[in-house]
């Protein structure tokens, strides 16, 4: 009711030819909605996104806000990593005015939200979703992705696979869209490198006991395994695989796998695991160093994790989109961002016009002991122009 009255007032003022309408709106906050898992198997990932978004918002608001002093305001709603709930929570946020949406975790959640942004008159920024479809057949002019899709991680894994002597590989992925998308890409990469796939398995999200899968990998005689198991799933798998002696026999690599928080819990058990590293606090560019220092000041010395880095880049994209658009209307921001070059903590990156994918460098590495702690260490990197396959042909921007 309050807004209606204000709009009426503004309308009548404008009708009366009095110019000073804008300042009435200036104090209105810019509302960001975050439907993300705060409980369930991906709670840890959702909470990392939350920390990074809150951190970025504090920075912006501390510097006086955006668009002439408007503060950023954020609302988080728990999706439990369930697509149906993500759609409901996204709707609740968008229709409640928090229509600049971002940072769900599970790819199925992202796809559920992306399918609705036109109807909700919203914008959505992916900081986490791996499924290629989000910038492929489900692409949308209002949907952006700042993190690396599966196809980019696979571009990274191919040259690594070529350096490995192991010929028999198995694939173990989480039984969700992102897992199936990764498994298909893995298989193509493995067979493309002249190696064979000896077993392929999908484990439900939140599996407690990986023993049957471990035995499958072992009895199939695999020498290498590619896994897509994030968060708690990855920890459970590696812990149990270690107990069965699998880690000594089989080389393990993955995407969404050797992430900072997972490696922190696993400690020495993570030694020698390989994987894509989409963001690392150790990336040696001045902007990243400043970000890491500021982050550590606020988080008692802790370094930002890869998911926190990606979510922060998502906020950088949104903030610069708002500034370029000079408006907080989702469609204006989306139009302003298309094809734009954005300043991010890991250097300048461009929003690819064809599919709204942010194009930046990608990294691959191994968990090694550095200064007394086990950490993902970058051993190979690809610059933005080499890290991505060309835009997916099935992407047709609708608006």
């Amino acid at each position, binding site marked *: 009711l309050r807004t209606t009255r204000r709009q009426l007032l503004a309308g009548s003022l404008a009708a009366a030819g009095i110019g000073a309408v804008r300042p009435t709106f200036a104090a209105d906050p810019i509302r960001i909605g975050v439907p993300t898992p705060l*409980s*369930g*198997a991906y*709670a*840890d990932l959702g*909470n990392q996104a939350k920390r990074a978004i809150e951190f970025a918002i504090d920075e912006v608001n501390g510097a006086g806000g955006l668009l002439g002093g408007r503060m950023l305001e954020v609302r988080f709603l728990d999706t439990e990593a369930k697509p149906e709930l993500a759609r409901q929570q996204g709707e609740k946020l968008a229709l409640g005015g928090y229509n600049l949406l971002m940072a769900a975790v599970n790819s199925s959640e992202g796809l559920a939200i992306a399918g609705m942004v036109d109807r909700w008159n919203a914008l959505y920024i992916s900081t986490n979703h791996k499924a290629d479809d989000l910038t492929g057949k489900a692409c949308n002019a209002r949907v952006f992705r700042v993190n690396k899709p599966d196809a980019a991680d696979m571009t990274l894994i191919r040259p690594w696979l070529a350096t490995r002597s192991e010929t028999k590989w198995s694939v173990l992925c989480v*039984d969700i869209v992102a897992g199936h998308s990764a498994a298909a890409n893995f298989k193509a990469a493995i067979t493309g490198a002249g190696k064979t796939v000896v077993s392929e*398995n*999908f*484990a*439900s999200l*939140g*599996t*407690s*006991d990986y*023993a*049957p*899968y471990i*035995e*499958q990998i*072992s*009895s199939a005689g695999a020498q290498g395994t590619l896994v897509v198991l994030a*968060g*708690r799933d990855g*920890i*459970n798998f590696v*812990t*149990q695989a270690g*107990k*069965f*002696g699998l880690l000594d026999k089989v080389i393990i690599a993955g995407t969404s796998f050797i992430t900072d*928080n997972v490696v922190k*819990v*696993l*400690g020495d058990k993570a030694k020698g695991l390989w994987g894509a590293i989409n963001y690392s606090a150790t990336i040696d560019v001045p902007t990243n160093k400043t970000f890491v220092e500021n982050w550590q000041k606020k988080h008692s010395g802790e370094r930002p994790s890869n998911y926190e880095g990606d979510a922060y880049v998502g906020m950088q994209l949104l903030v610069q989109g708002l500034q370029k658009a000079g408006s907080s209307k989702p469609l204006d921001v989306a139009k302003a961002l298309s094809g734009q070059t954005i300043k991010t903590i890991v250097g300048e990156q461009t929003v690819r016009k064809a599919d709204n994918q942010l194009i930046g460098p990608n990294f691959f590495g191994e968990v090694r002991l550095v200064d007394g702690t086990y950490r993902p260490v970058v051993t190979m990197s690809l610059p933005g122009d080499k890290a991505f396959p060309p835009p997916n042909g099935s992407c047709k921007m609708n608006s």
Partner: protein
Amino acid sequence: LLIQVLNGLVYGSLLYILSVGLVLVFGLRRVVNFAHGGLFMLGAYVAYSCSLIGGFWLGLIAGTLALCALGAVIDRLVFRPLQNQDATVTLLVTFGILLVIEDFVRTIWGKDFLALSEPASLAGVIPLGGSQFPVYRLAIIAAAIAVAVGLSLWLNRSRYGLYVRASSVDPVTTEMQGVDTERLGAMVVAIGSGLAGLAGVIAAPLVTLSPTMGSYIQIDCFVVVVTGGLSSFAGAFIAAMLIGQIHNLGVVFVPEAASMIPLLLMALVLAFRPGGLAGKPTA
């Protein structure tokens, strides 16, 4: 395949220890305890903290005893006052307890993942049919057998066991014969919760500790209890072992449907033997 069967036994054992606690509580208090998965998780966390002081074994004892005590408290403050309420009320209240436990754990231990290692004495592997099998997993099977034997001796040979059996058949008559059913109820709920805690501690070295670790296994646990017959101890044992096997062999032979088969089994049992495998066919 031998390894897969053993793996099934391990998972079944874990399910058994957890579900038999649920069966105990249901048998005497007629409460479907939705907080059971929360008690499982809390047991693991208590053990984690105590293991930092005195190692895994102290954690095991502390986790089990702490949960016994909590069970007695829950019985006194929740189950007993709600005894004459509609079953749905108690069900909702136990669901509330689950949420409280999860938030309590988040507040005390935080949202980050924690890991509890198995004791050094059980850390190794033994060679088995050309592969290796972790000793700790064999110990889980042994623990389940110990719980099953212990419970059945207690229920069938001891005076209190007799009271428990009598009371779960006809509480009123049992009370008239001079048995303090309230005290008995508290004792049984304490034991049931203690078993949930024990299962949590035993599971902790296999899985990551997180506030929601109970919610996944709880679903399988309910499947076990329903399949086995709600108040049958033998039924819980058979169903747990069956579901453990189905769960694991399903992954091997029909990977596409593996997660669905236990639920399918439950649906079949409900359709043809609504009282559960070991329950009365007419129930």
